[in-house]
């Protein structure tokens, strides 16, 4: 008990602790014969917000829970702030978590929920409540502290969960799909709030989501996971513009996967032929011969003024008008294409023959090794 209070008091005096890095070294998690996380290594730098992104069942939540200490690694090493925590239990790690369901204790008031952390660490009731009030003010919930969680709206409950996770000023803060229970409008605002909080408090945050748009919006870096392994790590822009493989190309944003042939290499550039079109792209390790291209829907240009020489002829099959954008399905010799046009007023009617070309400055990339 004494030990605990002496640990707490200097912390509240200096008021801010250093954020810590998180490192996984060849971590594997098995449940019986099932491998949930397979030989995963990565580093989350201190003060960064890193998203674990992937479809359900890819191992991202298990990875997050291993950072928290709620699951123990079957093999490998986990370091937080350079210290080996592989065998430490959740209670012994300086990590807090915001749960998907918020996990607010239903038998406690908002204030008791937020004060729970310091109070089980041995802080006096007064200190614990003072710390709790401070964090409740931070998330803008002053005045609601006497309520029971079930009397709050979804968004308010979420903020209580964040305040409760922040109250111990952890080295690392974890979010498990924090927006999945909020409606679409609220999501945008809350994710901006989280990002702002992370930057102003300089927190290390690991954030799990399956929503690629959410991940692109908030992250410093994104770790894309697929089938228990890391598919690619990088900044949002790197992932979108230079996908490492077919899975990432398809998962981050929409992509048309097209077949092409590398016909010539000059320095870092490759000349790729797709049907009648020739394009110059970074070769990204591809040699002469057939390659696959990821082409973003907005990088395909269609023109109804009829077939042009050197362009591909196609025909619009379906049109959806969505206000800010118009989406097309276009039939062409290189396959069915999904095309998005922004800022255009008049949709092209279905059945119209069009000529197809690519925007070259961005949105087209060779997928290495595919």
């Amino acid at each position, binding site marked *: 008990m004494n030990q605990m209070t002496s640990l707490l008091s200097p912390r509240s005096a200096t008021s801010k602790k250093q954020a810590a890095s998180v490192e996984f070294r060849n971590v594997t998690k098995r449940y019986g014969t099932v491998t949930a996380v397979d030989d995963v290594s990565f580093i989350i730098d201190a003060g960064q917000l890193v998203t674990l992104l992937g479809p359900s069942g890819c191992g991202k939540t298990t990875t997050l829970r291993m950072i928290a200490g709620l699951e123990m690694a079957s093999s490998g090493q986990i370091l937080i702030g350079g210290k080996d925590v592989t065998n430490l*239990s*959740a209670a012994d790690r300086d990590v*807090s978590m915001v*749960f998907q369901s918020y996990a607010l*204790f*239903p038998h406690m008031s908002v204030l008791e929920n937020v004060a729970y952390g310091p109070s089980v660490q041995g802080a006096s009731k007064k200190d614990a409540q003072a710390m709790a009030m401070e964090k409740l003010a931070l998330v803008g919930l002053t005045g609601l502290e006497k309520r029971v969680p*079930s009397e709050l709206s979804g968004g308010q409950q979420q903020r209580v969960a964040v305040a*409760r996770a922040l109250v111990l000023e952890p080295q690392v803060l974890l979010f498990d799909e924090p927006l999945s229970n909020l409606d679409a409008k609220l999501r945008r605002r809350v994710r901006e709030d989280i990002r702002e909080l992370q930057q102003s408090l300089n927190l290390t945050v690991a954030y799990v989501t399956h929503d690629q748009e959410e991940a692109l919006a908030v992250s410093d870096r994104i770790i894309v996971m697929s089938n228990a392994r890391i598919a690619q790590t990088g900044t949002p822009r790197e992932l979108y513009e230079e996908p490492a493989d077919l899975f990432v190309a398809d998962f981050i944003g929409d992509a048309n996967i097209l077949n092409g042939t590398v016909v010539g290499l000059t320095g870092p550039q490759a000349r790729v032929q797709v049907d009648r079109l020739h394009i110059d792209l970074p070769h990204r390790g591809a040699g002469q011969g057939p390659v696959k291209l990821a082409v973003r829907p907005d990088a395909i240009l269609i023109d109804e003024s009829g077939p042009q020489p050197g362009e591909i002829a196609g025909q619009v099959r379906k049109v959806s008008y969505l206000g800010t954008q118009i989406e097309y399905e276009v039939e062409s010799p290189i396959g069915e294409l999904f095309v998005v046009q922004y800022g255009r007023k008049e949709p092209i009617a279905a059945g119209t023959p069009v000529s197809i070309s690519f925007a070259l400055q961005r949105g087209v990339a060779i997928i290495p090794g595919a």
Partner: protein
Amino acid sequence: MSRATLGWIILGWIGYALLPWYGLDAAPTFSDYLGGGSGLVRGLTGAWWLLPILVPLLMSLWPSVRSSRSSDGDWLIASGALGLALIILQGFTIGLNGWTFDGLKALFGEPGPRQGGMGYGAALTAAAFLIVLCHGFAARGWCRGDAFVTSSIGVVIALILVFVFFPVSTILASAFADNNGNFAPGEFVVKFMDRSIWGLDCLTSDLRCGVAWNTLFLGLLVGVGTTALGLAFALIATRTAFRYKKLLRVMSVLPIITPPFVIGLALILMFGRSGALSSVLWEWLGIPRSRWIYGLPGVFIAQLLAFTPIAFLVLIGVVQGISPSLEEASQTLRAKSWTTFLTITLPLMRPGLANAFLLGFVESLADFGNPLVLGGNYEVLSTKIFFAVVGAQQDQGRAAVLSIILLAFTLGAFWLQHAWLGKKVYTTVTGKGDAGIPLPLPRRVAIASYLTAIPWALFTLAIYAIIMVGGFVRSMGRDYTPTLDHLLTAFRIENTERGLYFSGSAWDSFFATVKVAALSAPLTAAIGLLTAYLLTRQRFSGQRAFEFGTLLSFAIPGTVVGVSYILAFNVPPIEITGTGFILVMCFVFRNMPVGVRSGIATLSQIDKSLDEASLTLGARSATTMRRVVLPLLRPAVVASLVYSFVRAMTAVSAVIFLVTAEYNMATTYIVGRVEAGEFGLAIAYSTVLIIVMLLAIVVIQLAVGERRLGRRSAAANANPVAVQAVP
């Protein structure tokens, strides 16, 4: 090394060096407490076999002296395992009369060293070794490195091994031994094939059938009867506009707080030779008094009365669980209501019906009180076991063989239920709301239900009226003068110069019962809920076996438990027969499965991330348990406290083997009164017990309190006590 580990190591030393090693009840002298009778002193003064225990005790100190931490876990595991092994080894090889194994006798000569049963010192040291072992596993990273969890698992496993598996294996062993304790499989075969067990003479002649067939036949009858009656009640309660539904609910709870043989007793008072109804029939209609109630009819009626409510509680859940839209779908396909009932409703209830039947069957097999009171010449296994132990034969081997047969029947029934029903549960309640309205019962079904249920309900009411009246009139059937004599004989309090004197004949057993019930209820709830927590919230290897072990004692009939306890705990190393402790432990392990079940049911409704949130906020498992899980578990706490208290007050089958003059229980006292023909006293005492139990239920409810969940989710907690009732 944590302070908790160090604390347990110190406790281990205290147990070894200070507390008396032997004897539980023999009043220890002052010098015993100061180390005179401790394991260390005994070891130095002749009992050399206690000295090796010093080695693991010293080993456990090693990690706390060194500064290095990496191999702490291994040292703790090694010392804990070695310590436990040594204590168990010396306990089982050296008995009251020297060596316990023939090999050792041959090797070292007879009789060899002797020792008595283990005492507080031995128990404390063994417990300390166990905890140190578990802390060692936690240090190796088991169970997320959580010492509380590993220790809990260790303690529960150890308790189940000692109080469930050890007695059961003893009974198996003694079935294969002759009366001198030698291995004799031939004798087992002879006893097993006995004509009195498997004979089929009643089919061909006037002679009696074997006791095993009797038991099975009665079980089948009761299973069918309770299922039919339970279904009628359940249909009325859920599908009709019957006006007295509330009353049905109350009646379904009554038998749970009624000692099992009281119903038999009431039947005697009604239909016996001098029973109320028999007298009326004789005086008015000239029908001669007879003893027809003693035997199969009496036991059958009594068990129907006692176990129908259980079938009702099972089936009401099943009937409610049938999605009304399925029936509506059938009707929109032009099926008449009778066709719908026959082709949709009934088949959907099939698993529930089978479940109710098996429960009734098992209950009937395990019932001891009613066959004892009403059986007459119709013998069943449970009473036969009792008379094999306490009767003129004094044949423990025979009791063990009979117990094995009974155990095989009940385990077989549970196995059937598991194997067959496990795959066939038609869950028609889904997460989606069901807007359908249940189909009203077809006319003929409704009429049939009313015709079975209402007379039966009236009959039950009459029985309870007799229980209420019987204790307060001079003599049922002969003299209906109201009197408090019976009550006073049992519960007289005299005001003497030296203060109040409880001179009533029932006070001793009453106080003993309340004491044992009050001790065992919280223990049962604690162990049961802890086990439920481990089963639902933790993952560890061998979890299925662990679950089976905790639920095994549920399937063992009380008489078998009683016999196995006296066989196992009458000799060292664990010598606790005749103490109150054995009664408490008996109740704890017989009633624990209910705590486990209700705990699992409640815990699985509580989001697991609540515990995890608490853990990530720095609370350890023990704190999480206390501050988050327990407050949310209140309904289960109430359920298991109430159930175990009530069972401890009403059980008769297991305790009848374990009671002594000092620890006589209310139920066994009442059975004694019944056998002596003092029905009035017995009934009066039973009434008092029922009232005490009702009071206790209210007190427990108030003491534990409601669970606070805020306004949205308060009403949805069905009380899971009643469904679990098995003797």
